[in-house]
């Protein structure tokens, strides 16, 4: 999973990035409204964490621009503006959810996951053969036995489960896995795929030579 974080406060941004990183979520962090628009124009994200008080271009304007361009990426607004009219304004401009500063990291994570899941649609639980994956609790069970994945392995699995039955190239997986700041090791994806296969079975992740990877439709 990869998200765009638009937040001008260095300390707040830094800590959100560390927290999301720890969950295996790739973060692209921009510090102003213009940069946020450029990033949204250039890439696709699973979700946007948008601060409303951005310099150069207000978060609300970024949001309006995004929706006007037909971009349906889920947006979670982070703001210190907590009056009801301001919340309504944000939601009317196309925000999917709202968090008022100061907020808890736990709540941020929970809402972010809920947003992404809602956007993807479909079931919370993915089943394929004797493997079942709960996208909300992140529980992975194989043959009644719970399996523990590393955060990177989960990130790869999560990316593949966004579109079961579709092939994701290595570049696409890398993009989902790392923010701009993260360094990509050349064979990292292979290492995580190897780990997943070892834990969930060789046939769970299918390698289409020269094209990429996929998981079967559940």
């Amino acid at each position, binding site marked *: 999973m990869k998200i765009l974080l638009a937040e001008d*406060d260095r*300390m707040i941004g830094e*800590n959100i990035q560390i*927290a999301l990183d720890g969950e295996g979520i790739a973060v692209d962090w921009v*510090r102003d409204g213009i940069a946020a628009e450029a990033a949204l124009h250039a890439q696709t994200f699973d979700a946007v964490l948008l601060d409303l008080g951005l*310099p150069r271009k207000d978060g609300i304007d970024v949001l309006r621009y995004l929706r006007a361009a037909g971009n349906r990426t889920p947006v979670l607004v982070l703001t*210190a503006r907590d009056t009801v009219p301001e919340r309504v304004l944000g939601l009317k401009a196309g925000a999917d959810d709202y968090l008022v500063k*100061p*907020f*808890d990291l736990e709540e941020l994570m929970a809402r972010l996951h809920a947003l992404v899941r809602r956007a993807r649609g479909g079931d919370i639980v993915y089943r394929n053969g004797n493997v079942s994956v709960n996208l909300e609790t992140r529980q992975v069970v194989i043959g009644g036995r719970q399996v523990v994945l590393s955060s990177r392995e989960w990130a790869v699995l999560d990316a593949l489960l966004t579109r079961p039955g579709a092939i994701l190239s290595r570049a696409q997986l890398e993009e989902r896995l790392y923010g701009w700041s993260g360094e990509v090791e050349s064979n990292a994806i292979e290492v995580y795929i190897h780990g997943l296969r070892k834990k969930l079975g060789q046939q769970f992740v299918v390698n289409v030579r020269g094209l990429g990877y996929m998981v079967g439709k559940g």
Partner: protein
Amino acid sequence: MGSLRIRLLLLLGAAILLATIVQFAATFRASMQRADTLFDFHMRQMALALQDSTFEQIEWHAPGAEQNPFFEFIVQVWNADGIRIYQTSSYRTLPPRAPLGYAVVKAGNSDWRTYAVASRGRVIQIAQRLDSRRQRAITIAFESVWPLLPVSLLLLGAAWWVVTSALSPLNRVGRELSARNADSLAPVSDTGVPREVRGLIGELNSLLGRLAFAIEAQQRFVADAAHELRSPLTALKLQVQTLIRARGDEARKQAVQRLADGVERAARLVEQLLVLARQGSRTDLSEPAGASLADAVRQAAADTMVLANARGIELECRGFADVRIAGNAGDLHMLARNLLDNAVRYTPVGGKVLIDLADLPDAAVLTIEDSGPGIPADSRDRVFDRFYRVPGTDMDGSGLGLAIVKAIAERHGAAISFGESSIGGLMVSVSFPHARPD
């Protein structure tokens, strides 16, 4: 002072009472005099009317004749030999013969008013007792005086009505003000209010206006401050949670460092808010002996040294005049400190900051230049706004530094100007005009 209405009523009442008393006395006196004159006239008329009469003394001892209480005038007639040949009444003591014309004579215990006229060898004298004459005069005088009383009462009533109705606009304004809740500072209506009171209401409204403006500014400041405190608090909250989640010594150490930075930042913001709030409330801050601008700048430079060294920025002093100005040393230090701090913070590592303090004929000028990126022209108007940060700046500024500088400069009558520095960045000049010797 008590009630204006009661005061007016008392004063007017007293004036009316006094006027009534004076009027009463004057009228009474005049009536008495008129009655006196009239009685004298009647006496004379009577005497003249009797001139040609032949007087025949009848038996006046007849009972009843003396009993008539209305019989007040006494006629006496003397012949040429001085023998009384006629008298109208049987008074035990009759006034003696008085000089011709008007006179007052004493007979027994009573005073008599007399008029005597000589005619055909006789003297005809008319007499009236003074006390009964006065009695009559008083009765007459009272009759002419009593209409004054209802007139005075009418006047008192009119005064009460006039005072009450003239003061009613004031009462209305008072009621209007007392009926308000504490935070209503809307102007008081001056419709139907006399011109004299309108001035007062105008002043009151102007005061209310200024008060409303000050309160609004204060509320905006508090709202802004509360809003701005959210960011450092959010950062602190996240930093604490990051610390809790941190696994491993290295991660924990970093998280602790970040948390410490966050606390430092929140503390600085609160401190600056306090400085700004103090600037807004103090009225006179000048020290009588004046303050050394040079000392303030020297101290500020020393304070900034640590940060400058850490960022590899060279601080250089071009000119340093030993100048004193009228002002507050603590505030001047804060001003220089904020300007230097900004210069050092926003200048890239390895840059340069210049300080110049000049004592010109009409002003002391503090100039600080840096080799940083400067302030874009479109932001220069806004950098003095509270909590404004120039877009794209990376530092964790509170956005209050220049607001504080501006507040202090304004209190010292100093002007701030921006320019391009010869070393590439921003040049800020603060010019403190010298007090003119009056």
